[in-house]
């Protein structure tokens, strides 16, 4: 299917500061794309450039084959939900939602019907004459969504729409927005810094880092097969061990120089195979190995578990997560956080076990500040 939006070589600069440094992205019609990244990575700038509020300094944006960069915002046919909601306080809920329809010259009674239908879909029936100032955060968010959807856009832009909501309503709205998007067959582009939100809502996750696309793919691919140490850390694999790697047939041998007894042979099969470790193509010799706290587990000191990278450590801190305990473990190769279902006491000796398929192996970035190894014995 031809992409509804194709962005190529897009550059945006504020003065001398280049915020987007060449973005190439094709978005299929009806898909839900999440632009994910830390603050300052350019994700909001990309959305604002799509909407026409920020001028591009290079590259192109084509919407349904037509050049969009030369069009003013009102002619781009994209409806946006703002982070601040940007509702008009001098208008009622009905006037807010009906604004776009009024601009399109729709007769008053038809606007009334369309507004009522929007409110019904969003569970706000009977709120027509309310002032937006009287609404709760969640209700404002729905009105902002209704205002954007009322004009029946093909493309919906969402700028961190859920970041101002309570945790509970936020989780509920994720699913609501996703199901509305599917039902209406919209193409949606979501800007978020929340990786869980991106994965729950999107078909395609685009991770941005310093104005460039660091990786894009399905939520599974980005989560299981991060393409770079940055993406691995951003997607939650923040524990890092420095290892020595050696290619060995169809696999790779990992050795922790600080703990000679600790080594593991990781078989490698096709890169999509979730059961095997994710190993960067250029990983050989000095490498950095990332793993998630929840993917590792702890055993009593001296235990041995097959097919894991294991090394001894000592608990230094324990905190309760609800689903289990997050333990900070000091080892000879650094300090790590490991989740464990039962409680350990501080100062307990343990064995840290990381299953081979939970490892993300990258060539070592020598400029990275190595975690100081805390002696535990």
């Amino acid at each position, binding site marked *: 299917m031809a992409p509804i939006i194709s962005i190529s070589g897009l550059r945006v600069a504020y003065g001398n500061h280049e915020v987007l440094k060449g973005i190439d992205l094709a978005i299929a019609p009806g898909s839900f794309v999440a632009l994910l990244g830390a603050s300052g990575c350019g994700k909001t700038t990309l959305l604002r450039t799509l909407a*026409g509020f920020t001028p591009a300094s290079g590259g192109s944006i084509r919407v349904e084959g037509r050049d969009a960069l030369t069009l003013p*915002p*009102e002619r781009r046919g994209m*409806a*946006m939900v*703002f982070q601040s909601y*940007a509702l008009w306080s*001098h208008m009622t809920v009905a006037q807010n939602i009906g604004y*776009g329809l009024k*601009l399109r010259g729709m007769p008053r009674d038809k606007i009334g019907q369309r507004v009522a239908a929007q409110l019904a879909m969003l569970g706000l029936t009977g709120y027509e004459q309310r002032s937006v100032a009287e609404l709760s955060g969640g209700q404002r968010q729905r009105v902002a969504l209704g205002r954007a959807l009322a004009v029946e856009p093909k493309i919906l832009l969402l700028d961190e729409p859920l970041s101002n909501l309570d945790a509970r309503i936020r989780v509920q709205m994720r699913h609501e927005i996703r199901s509305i998007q599917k039902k209406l067959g919209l193409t949606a582009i979501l800007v978020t810094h929340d990786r869980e939100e991106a994965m729950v809502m999107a078909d395609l996750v685009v991770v941005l880092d310093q104005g460039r696309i660091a990786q894009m793919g399905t939520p599974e691919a980005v989560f299981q097969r991060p393409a770079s140490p940055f993406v691995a850390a951003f997607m939650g694999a923040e524990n890092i061990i420095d290892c020595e790697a050696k290619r060995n047939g169809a696999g790779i041998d990992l050795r922790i120089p600080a703990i000679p007894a600790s080594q593991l042979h990781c078989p490698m099969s096709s890169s999509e195979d979730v059961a095997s470790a994710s190993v960067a193509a250029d990983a050989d010799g000095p490498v950095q190995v990332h793993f998630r706290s929840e993917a590792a587990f702890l055993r009593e000191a001296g235990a041995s578990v097959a097919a894991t990278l294991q090394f001894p450590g000592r608990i230094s801190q324990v905190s309760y997560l609800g689903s289990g305990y997050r333990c900070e473990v000091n080892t000879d190769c650094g300090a790590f956080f490991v989740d464990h279902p039962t409680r350990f006491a501080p100062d307990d000796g343990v064995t840290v076990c990381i299953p081979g398929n939970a490892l993300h192996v990258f060539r070592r970035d020598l400029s990275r500040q190595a975690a100081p190894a805390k002696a535990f014995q």
Partner: protein
Amino acid sequence: MSALTQRLPKLGGAILRSVLIGLLAVAIFGPLLNMLIWTVAEAWYFPAKLPIRWGFQFWHRVFRPEAGAMAALWTSIIIALMTVALSLLVSIPAGYALSRRTLPLRGVFLLIFLLPQAFPAIAVHMNIARIFYGLGLNGTLWGVMLVHAIQGLVFSVWIASAAFASVDSEQVEAARNLGATPWRAFVSVSLPQAAPGLMASAIFVFLISLDEFSGTFFVGVPEVRTLPLTMLNAALEGNYQIASITALLLLVPSIAFMLFVEKFLKADVLAKVGT
């Protein structure tokens, strides 16, 4: 002992506060009270603390048609309303333009409106009168309105610029995003959002015009007579009763206008003025 030393400063503070509040009340309400007494005093000579004879005799004099006070009141109101209309006409586009941070020489433009206030009013008004004489504007309502507007513009443009600057730019973008042209977004979002600030500036301009004296004196007299001129004449002649009654009359349109505009001014939006 310790309880006493703690209570003493407290007591002293309370007394000090009462005295300060009392002084403030005298400063604000003293002249007003004095003026109110003068309006109903028929005879009041030194060293009497209060009028010797009370009554409404001077009210009859002021309201006689040949006294011209009512005509002057209407002239004042018409000029004030025209001045408000003109200053809004200028300050809305000027304030909107000056609210854009990207406008070059923004500070210079804002200062230009302040300039007429920086020089002695009489010098400015004498020279305006000379120019207006050449243009045939002397002695006309239009001429007086223009003189008043020059003084009102500094406030109305500055307040309007602050009001437009406080409009959330995302609200304007939201209108553009849904299909509004820049003009349509201005009319349906920027203008209503800035309206409370614009109303506040209208009050200022109305009050300035209603009180204005020296510009009217140089440009308007003798064809155009406003209430402040009547009042000053009476005061110079030592007729404090007439001066006080005209001052009270001048309060009526001020309060009426404020009540009218107050409908648009909620405290929460007033707080946004100047941000």
